[in-house]
């Protein structure tokens, strides 16, 4: 696993505000996510869950605040972070095979211009094997089922051999067998000391799959171990309607 600053949390977010078209979608989020945890990010639609992941990855401009990964600026820690975007975010008719997609996970360490070597292909095949997709390596990706496509995405993250994995709805639209396989993988990753932060929709499975939870609804409602934080009261705060003043303030900022 790549080198990380000792002791620093996996993710530290300080007073983070993110806005689209000037309209804030995340307000003043301030939290630290410890290492070696399986972390669920939950909240209603439009709560800013994906945005939080993208902010950590530096994919969206920050209106205020800062993010650190293992105590370092993201630019110095890219090799420590792997990202599994939402399945719908890419065009599955793109003319590439499952193996091609997984090999993309090695591009970061290859840098500009250098071509993937045999060792990269072998690593990609090994990681396809880990998700039970080796037999499909040479399939064009549109010929895969939803669950298989998700496994390919996860294999692509595995091949990055990162310390922190950010996954946007890894369980969305997958079959039961794939869901079980992914959960097994996540547990194995935690056993290796890796940190996984996943946007998750099925509240019922949160206590089974995860041990740490971040509850969002445009602002941070609560964050901490599932056992102490994932309570009825906090769920009500998270899902029981938005803070209407936040919405109104966001409108006011946009119109100004």
């Amino acid at each position, binding site marked *: 696993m790549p080198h990380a600053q000792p002791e620093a949390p996996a993710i530290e977010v300080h007073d983070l505000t993110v806005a689209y*078209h000037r309209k804030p979608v995340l307000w003043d989020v301030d939290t630290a996510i410890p290492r070696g945890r399986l972390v669920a990010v939950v909240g209603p639609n439009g709560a800013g869950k994906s945005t939080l992941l*993208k902010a950590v*990855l*530096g*994919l969206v401009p920050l209106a205020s605040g800062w993010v650190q990964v293992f105590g370092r600026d993201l*630019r110095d820690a*890219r090799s420590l*972070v792997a*990202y599994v*975007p939402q399945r719908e*975010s*890419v*065009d599955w008719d*793109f*003319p*590439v*095979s499952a193996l*091609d*997609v997984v090999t*993309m996970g090695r*591009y*970061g360490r*290859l840098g*500009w*211009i*250098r*071509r*993937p070597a045999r060792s990269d292909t072998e690593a990609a095949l090994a990681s396809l094997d880990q998700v039970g997709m080796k037999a499909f390596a040479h399939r*064009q990706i*549109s010929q895969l089922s939803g669950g298989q496509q998700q496994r390919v995405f996860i294999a*692509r993250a595995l091949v990055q051999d990162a310390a922190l994995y950010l996954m946007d709805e890894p369980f969305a639209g997958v079959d039961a067998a794939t869901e079980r396989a992914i959960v097994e993988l996540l547990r194995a990753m935690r056993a290796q000391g890796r940190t996984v932060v996943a946007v998750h929709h099925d509240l019922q499975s949160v206590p089974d799959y995860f041990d740490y939870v971040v509850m969002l609804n445009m602002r941070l409602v609560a964050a901490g171990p599932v056992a102490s934080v994932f309570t009825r009261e906090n769920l009500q705060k998270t899902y029981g309607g938005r803070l209407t003043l936040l919405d109104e303030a966001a409108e006011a900022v946009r119109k100004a």
Partner: protein
Amino acid sequence: MTAAISNLSLHASDWWTIGTAAVCGVACGVPGVYLVLRRMSMLGDAISHAILPGLAAAFLFFGTRDVLAMLAGAMATGMLTAWLSAGVARLGKVPEDAAMGVVFTSLFALGVLLITLGSRNVDLDPGCVLYGLIDAVALDTRDVLGVAVPRSFLILSVFAVLNVSLVGVFYKELKIVSFDSALASALGFRSGVVHYTLLAMIAATCVASFEAVGSILVVAMLIVPGATAYLLTDRLSRMLVIAAVVACVAAFAGHLLALATGAAVAGAVSVALGGLFAGAALFSPRYGVVARALRRAALALRIRREDALANLYRAHEGRAAETRRAPGLLDHVAAWALRRQGLVVAKDGVSALTDAGLARARTLIRSHRLWETYLAERVGLPADHLHDPAHRVEHFITDELRGELAGDVGTDVDPQGREIPPDRRAEGEP
């Protein structure tokens, strides 16, 4: 027209014309693949139009038609189009395609205006920019190692080599940025840099191609080879090669068409490109109209054959056939095919299953009754809603699925009390 073509003999000047169109096609078609894949084909159209004001402005500013001045001007407005379109779309109120439509038409009109103003006292011909001079490439030549090579051919060859090399060198970067730009950014690749480099390449190639082939053929060469190749393969590397080949074939076929009809070469090559695309759309092995129709027909025939087998099995069990409809042409073909395959024999004018036919029919009935049982037990459908869904699904149940179903329902009698035929490994072909 065939006779006309066979009477033609190609002169050196014809080969230069074909060659110029071909190198132009490779120079445009190869980067064009990425426009097609990124669903930005309109941007190719936009850029190729919007460089006109760049050409005019560069001429008015530098007072020369020097290639480098023209390139600089055109690349500037080409990029400006992409950047302005994205900017207008970011205003929030205007969709991206509309933003592009506004930007490039305005810039194009501005270019026409500038040219009209500028050409009052100088020789700058809007017609040349729009239609190109490909019919006469051989008239303007440069001496290369003792051979008189048309200037357009030289310039476009340079661009073809340059673009193919750039795509080769940055193959990995173009692939990841086109497929998943968020991942590319997260891995530290500058998506914007790759994007605008691609656009700069395309803008520069458009300028170089304009003089030779005109704007209609440039737009066609940017998009049609890539779109054609997309129908023929699902590997990016092959798609790039096929796009280049399509462009070359269109150059050759288009020139013959022009010779035979007396039409302008640029127009004829565009028509040839359209013809190649239509050919791919019709005859592509996987995505073509014909292949799809054949696959559908084969499936329909298989279903009829299987229905006939299943009915014979029910007769063999002493039950009435379950589907009653007047036999159509397809049923007669199916019956003929079953006899030919040796699954059915005609005895005294009555059809009967052979051993192989019986085995196949048993598997089908097994699928049908397993599915009925599954629907009744697990989905909870009432008894009179079981047959039709099972009748549709039975044709698609694989060995594996059948095994899982058998394990799941754990009975050998279907909801109507009929036996579910056991799985016999002595079955014929699957």
